[in-house]
């Protein structure tokens, strides 16, 4: 029976909610494997495990529960070992590395912040900042909306100007949060967001972080901000300097294309 691994933490084993289950249909009971001061949170791996929504959620929820109690190194989704004893061997062989990462991340959690543009607000900004666009818009309006070509020309420029705002506003968010974070990691790009930022913060500093996000939300009306956390430190399990596993940072999403 192969073993699905959710994450690695240290002894003593974290208290798991009674009946906590993980991946699979039916969901497999979650258990722990202990070795050399380390604890792997695992379950049996279903033979036909696929990256379905329900499975991803199960992975995240098991980790969220452990993370609520203590620091945990979250595995990427879909990590399957041949059996329990192989997991134990990995814990023993890499104990030093895991303990170092756990020390570094001790007391910290990840927050993920995604920003998108409030379309009306960003249009106001773009028109206010670019007199020529405003003039063109007003000229069109004076002409009863303008011709098809005029509308197209204006619309294209406005769309381009809105897009040009994206890196500006992404930097605004980063500048606001960076001082509060132990580490910052750009998340994978995905549709609909102008930026996707993960920050590593002390658990106790979470309120500060949320306050900073809220302040920015107020002071920058063109930004719509969405905060997720506290999360296990998905984005910070590997060292972020050059010695880090290059696959961890450079990897792009499997379905990026």
């Amino acid at each position, binding site marked *: 029976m192969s073993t699905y691994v959710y994450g690695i933490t240290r002894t003593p084993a974290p208290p798991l909610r009674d009946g906590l289950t993980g991946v699979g249909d039916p969901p497999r009971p979650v258990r722990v494997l202990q070795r050399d001061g380390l604890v792997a949170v695992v379950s049996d791996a279903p033979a036909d495990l*696929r990256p379905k*929504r329900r499975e*991803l*959620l199960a992975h*995240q*929820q098991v980790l969220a*529960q452990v993370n609520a109690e203590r620091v945990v190194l979250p*595995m*990427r989704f879909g*990590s399957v*070992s041949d059996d329990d004893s192989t997991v134990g061997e*990995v814990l023993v062989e890499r104990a030093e590395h895991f303990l170092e990462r756990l020390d570094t991340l001790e007391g910290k959690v990840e927050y*993920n912040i*995604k920003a998108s543009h*409030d379309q*009306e*607000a960003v*249009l*106001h900004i773009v*028109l*206010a900042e670019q007199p020529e666009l*405003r003039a063109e818009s007003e000229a*069109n*309006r004076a002409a009863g909306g*303008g011709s098809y070509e005029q*509308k*197209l020309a*204006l*619309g*294209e420029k*406005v*769309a381009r100007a809105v897009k040009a705002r994206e890196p500006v506003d992404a930097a605004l968010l980063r500048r606001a949060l960076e001082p509060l974070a132990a580490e910052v*990691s750009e*998340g*994978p790009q*995905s*549709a*609909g967001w102008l930026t*996707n930022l*993960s920050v590593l913060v002390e658990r106790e500093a979470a309120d500060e972080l*949320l306050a900073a996000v809220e302040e920015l*939300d107020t002071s920058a*009306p063109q930004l*719509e*901000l*969405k*905060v*997720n*956390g*506290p*999360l296990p430190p*998905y*984005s910070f*399990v*590997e060292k972020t300097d050059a010695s880090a596993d290059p696959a961890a940072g450079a990897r*792009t*999403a*499997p*379905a*990026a294309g």
Partner: protein
Amino acid sequence: MTVAPAQQQGGGTGNLYDVLELVLDRGLVIDAFVRVSLVGIEILKIDVRVVVASVDTYLKFAEACNRLDLESGRNKSPGLPDVVGQVTESGAQAKTKGALSGAAQTVSDAFQQARDESQESGTRRRTAPRKKEERE
């Protein structure tokens, strides 16, 4: 601002989409473990801007600009507390009924259309009305 606490118990799937890319793209990888094949996973990576850059969208932007000026006056600054504040504090639903009704509707439509087209079935997104929620 929307805050989604992560340690929801039970079937709280609402925020799954928002951390999906972290679960799939980040986290510890150990070479001694096999990784489940991710073939078939459909992450929403379609670049929304590709869709936005269409003639239809340009026309909607132009239309929105016209109406935006009409509604808010020519000399107003982007701060526009009366208008912008209202917009950011309410969800998309409310926006369409606000002071910017015409322009907001048009622009929302343009973006919503882009977003709709970028969505995939099976993985529900929560892009549309992002209402402000009080964090506890």
